[in-house]
């Protein structure tokens, strides 16, 4: 091996030149390792930052926007909500259980580091097809990992998605969202201030696990199985019990106002936590490398500084508070060690010392400007280009394809109940969960985090993504994803407050991928701006590649909503016998990017443009219908079109339907934004229609709920029992009782 060290650490020659310019000399091995992790794609967003600036991030309720550990929103009554989404795609591809488990652990730390108690997790998951054994192994391991860590750490998993598609074969997308709640006055930022203050490392010991995780794993594509197996030591190992004690200890420290700043240790470990806190506070830091409790003997300084061992936090503490900090940590059985001191100037120095007492005159292992690790990472404006055959693709409308002989079989094939996944998660802890997994959106009671008093209001959450729409048109597809989120929230009576996103894309060195990323960001940004929804955080996961091909572009959004009056459970999606079926909204639909088209291998066509005014009106009237208890069921129309929406409403309730006015497969499976199916009791029909008319929103009667079949005149006749078993049995049949991991 003659490869220069910087390249094997993932730095380019140009990046090395930058480091030499910053230091005025060549970096030593430790310094090089520190730059390599901090300037990795994962930590620095060097390929995406230039585009992320286009998101609208301000709003009257935004307390903390992007750039901190989590976004924070004011939700009234002196209560704030912290939210963030992250990806753990590559670790989960290599080691599904631990990859997913540590993804959960990492996102929790991002939330409680803000002073918020984590109260809800959601997991948007995407796997390869169910008929691929490795994809099934990954899916089962990931679900076990989320279950094993999330349940044990004591944070309910209240929602998510599960998508199976060949684009994710060998490269699953494991996105993890967390929401926390805090009294305004407990908000704390990840910054170090006050010369002479102490940096106290809390939690687990530091081992050799996860060294270079961000640079080796997260910021490069996959090659072959053997090479991937060699990367397995770069995946960290999680301990939910350690994390649980860390949560309780940190929240107690914050309640007692014993820390001036606090930061979690995630990607890039101590290097990241020390440099970011110092950089944000405009100070420097001396780190006593041998004060860090180590799990293994003979660890090198670069290993200590870049290890991604889990369940660790860095607290900045005034010397006078140290004894009380140590006492609280002792009570929670959390290890606490003084590993550094805040210094004047901006230098991050790594010293050959075990503490302040032997630091004077100690050898300086590394001496770099803290801000240069955090803020001076390279910024790339990578070349971008639409695919050469874009025009031809768009002209290739799937509507040209003849209708299939058996629409019933196509419909049955789309039904998939995710209960096999969600029932492995505790979704009810904290007595907040009014609507849990399986609904269009989750609803949680909003209780005062300080007193426990019920506010009479609710938080709503939805996580949405659609790679098919975004593969056809990343800009319009991404806008349509936001529209779906808004409609999902409306079905439970919620108005949107804020969004976070996880942008899962392929290799940024491919101009087409950069074009997809840029277009998708514009699609999300345009929709958010028009809808008045601020973007308060995000994560970018690049280099997602399956068998040598970039994955379909997959921006995933998680949107927080507010239910202003939560006095009863929302109607849900289940039908009531005798209810009248209505379609709300009449925007354009298309088979392009539809689930039906994908199943036929048709990837062309053009998505309709989002009509924001119409979406606003439709979502608004839907909210009012739900809050006024005028509907028996409401379900957003999304993947699979009207046909799948209606079928899902039938199978969850055991009530069939009889429908007219759907004339062909395009009407049945066409997809578009801003539609919902309603089930309305006959006595409320007139009022529902009047309200829609007053709001200028189209509503059409299409049929009636009842019977034991799914019937569309001259088009479809499916036995409800067959639909129910297709829906219910799909995942258990594929994934089985199976083996358990961990």
């Amino acid at each position, binding site marked *: 091996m003659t490869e220069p060290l910087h390249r094997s650490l993932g730095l380019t020659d140009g990046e090395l030149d930058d480091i030499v310019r910053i230091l005025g000399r060549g970096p030593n091995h430790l310094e090089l390792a520190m730059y390599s992790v901090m300037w990795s794609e994962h930590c620095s967003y060097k390929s995406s930052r230039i585009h992320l600036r286009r998101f609208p991030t301000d709003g009257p309720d935004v307390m903390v926007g992007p750039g901190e550990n989590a976004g924070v929103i004011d939700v009234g009554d002196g209560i704030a909500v912290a939210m963030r989404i992250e990806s753990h795609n590559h670790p989960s591809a290599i080691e599904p259980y631990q990859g997913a488990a540590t993804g959960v652990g990492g996102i929790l730390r991002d939330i409680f580091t803000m002073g918020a108690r984590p109260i809800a997790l959601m997991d948007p998951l995407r796997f390869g097809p169910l008929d691929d054994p490795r994809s099934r192994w990954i899916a089962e391991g990931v679900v076990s990992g989320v*279950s094993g860590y999330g*349940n044990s750490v004591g944070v309910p998993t209240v929602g998510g998605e599960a998508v199976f598609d060949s684009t994710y074969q060998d490269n699953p997308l494991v996105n993890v969202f967390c929401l926390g709640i805090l009294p305004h006055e407990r908000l704390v930022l990840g910054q170090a201030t006050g010369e002479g203050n102490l940096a106290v490392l809390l939690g687990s010991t530091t081992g050799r696990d996860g060294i270079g995780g961000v640079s080796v794993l997260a910021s490069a594509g996959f090659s072959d199985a053997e090479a991937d197996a060699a990367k397995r030591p770069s995946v960290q190992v999680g301990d939910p*019990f350690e994390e649980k004690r860390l949560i309780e200890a940190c929240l107690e420290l914050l309640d007692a106002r014993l820390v001036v700043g606090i930061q979690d240790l995630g990607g890039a470990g101590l290097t990241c936590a020390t440099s970011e806190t110092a950089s944000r506070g405009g100070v420097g830091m001396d780190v006593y490398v041998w004060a860090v409790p180590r799990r293994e003997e003979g660890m090198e300084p670069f290993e200590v500084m870049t290890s991604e061992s889990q369940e660790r936090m860095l607290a900045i503490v005034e010397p006078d508070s140290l004894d009380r900090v140590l006492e609280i940590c002792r009570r929670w059985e959390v290890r606490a060690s003084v590993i550094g001191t805040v210094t004047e100037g901006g230098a991050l120095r790594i010293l050959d010392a075990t503490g302040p007492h032997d630091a004077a005159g100690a050898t300086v292992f590394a001496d770099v400007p803290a801000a240069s690790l955090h803020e001076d990472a390279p910024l790339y404006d990578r070349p971008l280009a639409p695919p050469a055959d874009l025009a031809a693709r768009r002209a290739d409308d799937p509507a040209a394809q003849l209708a299939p002989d058996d629409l019933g079989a196509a419909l049955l094939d789309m039904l998939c109940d995710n209960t096999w996944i969600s029932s492995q998660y505790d979704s009810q802890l904290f007595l907040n969960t009014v609507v849990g997994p399986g609904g269009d959106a989750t609803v949680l009671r909003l209780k005062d985090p300080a007193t426990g008093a019920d506010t009479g209001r609710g938080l709503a959450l939805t996580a949405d993504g659609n790679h098919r729409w975004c593969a056809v048109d990343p800009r319009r597809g991404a806008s349509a994803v936001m529209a779906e989120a808004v409609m999902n929230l409306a079905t439970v009576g919620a108005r949107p407050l804020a969004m976070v996103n996880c942008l899962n894309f392929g290799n940024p060195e491919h101009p087409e991928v950069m074009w997809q990323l840029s277009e998708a960001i514009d699609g999300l940004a345009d929709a958010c701006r028009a809808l008045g929804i601020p973007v308060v955080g995000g994560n970018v996961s690049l280099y997602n590649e399956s068998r040598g091909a970039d994955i379909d572009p997959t921006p995933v959004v998680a949107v927080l909503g507010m239910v202003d009056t939560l006095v009863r459970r929302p109607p849900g999606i289940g039908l009531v016998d005798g209810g009248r079926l209505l379609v709300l909204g009449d925007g354009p639909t298309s088979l392009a990017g539809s689930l039906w088209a994908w199943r036929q291998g048709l990837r062309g066509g053009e998505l309709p443009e989002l009509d924001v005014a119409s979406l606003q009106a439709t979502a608004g009237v839907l909210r009012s219908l739900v809050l006024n208890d005028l509907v028996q069921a409401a379900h957003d129309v999304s993947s699979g079109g009207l046909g799948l929406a209606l079928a899902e409403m039938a199978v969850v309730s055991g009530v069939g339907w009889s429908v007219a006015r759907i004339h062909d497969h395009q009407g049945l499976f066409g997809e578009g934004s801003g539609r919902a199916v309603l089930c309305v009791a006959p006595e409320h029909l007139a009022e529902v229609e009047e309200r829609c008319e007053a709001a200028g929103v189209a509503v059409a009667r299409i049929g009636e709920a009842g019977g034991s079949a799914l019937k569309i005149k001259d088009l479809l006749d499916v036995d409800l029992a067959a639909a129910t078993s297709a829906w219910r049995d799909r995942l258990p049949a594929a994934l089985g009782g199976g083996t358990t991991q961990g």
Partner: protein
Amino acid sequence: MTARVGVVLFPGSNCEFDAVEAIRHLGGDAEIVWHEASSLAGFDAVIIPGGFAHGDYLRPGAIARFSPVMEAVTAFAADGGPVVGICNGFQILTEAGLLPGALQKNAGLKFRCDTAILRVESTNSALTNEATLGAELRIPINHFEGNYTCSTETLAELRDADRIVLRYVENPNGSVDDIAGVCNEGRNVVGLMPHPERASHELLGSTDGRPLLLSLLAAASRQ
């Protein structure tokens, strides 16, 4: 006088807030008791809540039984004080020898969060004295190790002495004889895998946990 319930908190417990909230919602008084406490003086009843005490390391409840508070719980129970173990609390009570049997992994070898239907099999216990015999209650379950097992002799004893207080209508985890909850000989110590505190508010979808928690408050008031 308002009954005062102590809710024991071990490192790794996670249902302690829920138990406190549900008890207060029903008019009782509840307070957290740290696992290093050596006395339960002043409490009229004790709840060992769900969660993963001490990380469930070794096996659920195996370490928690050695926490100092368990000596106090044992003494409290010996004096006839009502003690209820919910989920992980049930596991801890069996490990501590305050209840017979053991909880092993679910028959499906999967964690299971769901709603189960329980039938009240005895109203002679600290957890069921206000419930209706034969009533069917919709109560959430949330466990990996909820598969109750015991020796044939113990099972016969439990049946003969009317100590099986709750049974599953549809067995979700493989528990012997569909057992969801049992009590001790004195009928003041009860363990169950389902979570009555999760069925205590209309917005949560069921209020069927109330008769059980009200039973505990009634037993506490008699202290």
